[in-house]
């Protein structure tokens, strides 16, 4: 009996081995290596790699550009994530609502999800030419008499930030909506029926039945979006010159990291320092999300219910 049990145990190790090995190799080692590199002045085009202590981090904080990048990243992420979650939630509630019975849910879902399938490079190129000085937006607006002279949108900080926020929202709200719909449709119908029989209104059903039951999914969405948002790269990188132009308005953490890596000597030490900062920042906020949305079931309440 005992022998059989140990055999089973070993078998389990074999099953989890691929993940553990993959994680150690592609998850933990890169993090360790990034951390180690961030304390050196390693560059790719010279053969130097000396330990420089916290120099890279000191430089990072003495230099306004990094703070600009961090603020930009947070602003760009929050400005697209809040409406993204709101709209996705609204759509998910509508499409899973038994009373509304919206037709063609599958088609709508496909339409909302479609932008997510497009290549960021193509989207960035599309919006760049739409809004360029000689582009169609200016042509339509001027010929339609909306304004009299072409506007250089590409050089306008607010317009470019707005575009990044819009594109990110547009690409990702469908994804969020689908995850939320999946979570909502897995909630047992009898709970809704019971709530309705008890006289709950739509908002009350949402607040007291739907919300608590989709909390695990909410945590998942918040954390994955946070990770994605902190690493926002492709759209702001491709939309203008790849340096966060105009005037650093769409410079994000990862663009700055890549710029250092791409600088003429390839300063991977200095760019690792940014990577480490992104990692620390993301981890703290992710843990905060877990903490705030943890299961709050104090014993006192339970006892009262009983």
């Amino acid at each position, binding site marked *: 009996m005992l022998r059989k049990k140990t055999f089973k145990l070993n078998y389990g190790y074999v099953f989890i081995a691929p993940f553990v090995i993959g*994680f150690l190799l592609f*998850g933990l*080692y*890169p993090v360790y*290596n*990034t951390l180690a*590199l961030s304390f050196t002045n390693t560059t*790719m*085009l*010279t*053969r130097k790699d000396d330990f420089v202590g916290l120099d*890279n981090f000191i430089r990072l904080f003495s*230099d*306004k*550009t990094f703070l600009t990048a961090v603020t930009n990243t947070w602003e760009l992420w929050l400005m697209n994530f809040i409406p993204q979650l709101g709209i996705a939630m609204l759509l998910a509630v509508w499409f899973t609502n038994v009373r509304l019975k919206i037709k063609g849910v599958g088609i709508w879902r496909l339409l909302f999800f479609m932008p997510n399938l497009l290549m960021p490079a193509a989207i960035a190129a599309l919006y760049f*030419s739409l809004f*360029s*000085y*000689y582009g169609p937006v*200016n*042509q339509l*607006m*001027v*010929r339609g008499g909306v304004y009299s002279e*072409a506007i*250089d949108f590409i*050089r306008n900080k607010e317009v470019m930030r707005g575009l990044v926020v819009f594109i990110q929202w547009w690409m990702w709200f469908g994804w969020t909506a689908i995850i939320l719909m999946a979570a909502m449709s897995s909630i047992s119908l009898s709970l809704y029926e019971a709530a309705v029989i008890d006289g709950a209104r739509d908002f009350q059903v949402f607040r007291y039945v739907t919300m608590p039951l989709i909390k*695990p999914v909410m945590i998942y969405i918040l*954390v994955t979006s946070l*990770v994605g948002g*902190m*690493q926002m790269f492709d759209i702001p990188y*491709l939309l203008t*010159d790849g*340096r966060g*132009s*105009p*005037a*650093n308005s769409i410079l994000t953490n990862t663009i*700055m*990291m*890549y*710029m*250092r*890596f*791409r*600088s*003429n*000597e*390839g*300063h*991977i030490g*200095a*760019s*690792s320092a940014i*990577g480490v900062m992104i*990692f620390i920042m*993301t*981890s703290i906020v992710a843990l905060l999300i877990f903490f705030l949305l943890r*299961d709050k079931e104090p014993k006192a309440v339970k006892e009262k219910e009983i």
Partner: protein
Amino acid sequence: MKRLSSVFSVLIVAAMLLAACGAPATEAPAAEAPAAEAPAAEAPAAGKTVLDVWSFTNEILTMAVAFEGKHPDVDVVYTMIPMTNGEYQTKLMATLGTPDVPDVVALEAAFVKQYVESDFLADLTDLMTYANELKMFPFVYETASDDGVVKGYSYQATPGGLFYRRSLAKEYFGTDDPAAIQDILGDMDKYIAAAEVVKEKSGGNTFMVASGGDFHNLFYANRANPWVVDGKLTVDPQVEAMIATSKLFRDSGFEARATQWQEGWFAGMNGTLTDAAGNPKQIFTYFLPTWGLPYVLAPNAKSADGSSDTTGDWALIPGPMAYQWGGTWVGVMKDSDKQDLAKEFVKFVALDEENLTNWATGVYTNDFLKAIDPAVPEGQSQAAGDFIGSQVVAEKLVPLFDDSAMSSFMGGQNFYKQWIAAAPRVNARLFQGSDDAIQRALNDPMSSYLEGTITYDEMWQLWKDAVRNEFPDLIIE
């Protein structure tokens, strides 16, 4: 059970976080990337010495095949990685110091100097004998030299010139003769005065230049000081003049506000540029180098619907200042174990009279290459007209271009003769590895300044911040 599963989900999410955050910052994924590129290179043939050549265009493949024709025992494995968004540079950097390092690399003007200044290219100074024999234009080997050590050569020289529309020149200045127009546009003050005339006589419907960015190269090429002097970031008066001129062009409406390499810039080449309200606009001049003629101007001289065609309406003059733009150099990697063969390849590509002649005169047709290697891709060939780095060979070739397709595009002008006159005036001694990044960092603050959204001082501050961000060791005041 519930607690256990939530612990697990935390772990899994944490693992995803780790994996997602860590990866981009390390060189591991980048180092693996070239392997994924392998299908782009042909498989090495058995029993032959393999020479690994990396480039960012298909141009050198033509010469690689020709080289195989001369050396049947050599198999050149050619890897092409496009330069879009710095892909080539990133992948090349990632191979440095690893066994994957290629034997021969092509280096573009934007980054040739940083490799030349580094410790990764082999010393090719002994090939200078051949370069002197062929009278290579000095800026070509100066660009690839560091402290007198030559580490790369180029088959081409890429001096720049000023292209103008003959019909518009006649309209505004009464002549389209290149010598007369050169007198009118011979220096920057004259160029500015002419811009005024063009604007006035056309009623603002013809712009002197499509984009102010077009003449940046001219100012950069004529500086008296490099960007970095004794480790300190320095601004040369020419750079200040460049910004002042750009501002003047923007504020006076001498430039069409197009962006280089974008729709409006190309539309000006075939005369189909229209402003947002639909009014047709013309561009009088374009600053382009040697390769700009066959690769940029000629292919865009006809509008997509064929309604407008500027073929035959162009002429080339030296313009206000001598400059050069772009170009491809070839060098040998120090870590390559095939030094002699790699050197032989560089010599063939850049310093072989026969190869240079064939290259510039259109001998390397697709059929020619297919005869050597049947696996050559369809369309791989080199048309006549690329301007080569050797003065001796270039001078021999001049008469061939008196009457060619390209000279009829230029209204009968022999463009080759123009390039020969332009090339010796170019100076590359101030060229530094950090130039490209420093100049790029200036583009964005400068356009914000031209736009009027920031002040002159704020522009310099933004630029210094950007440069500091990329160059940790530079002294910036």
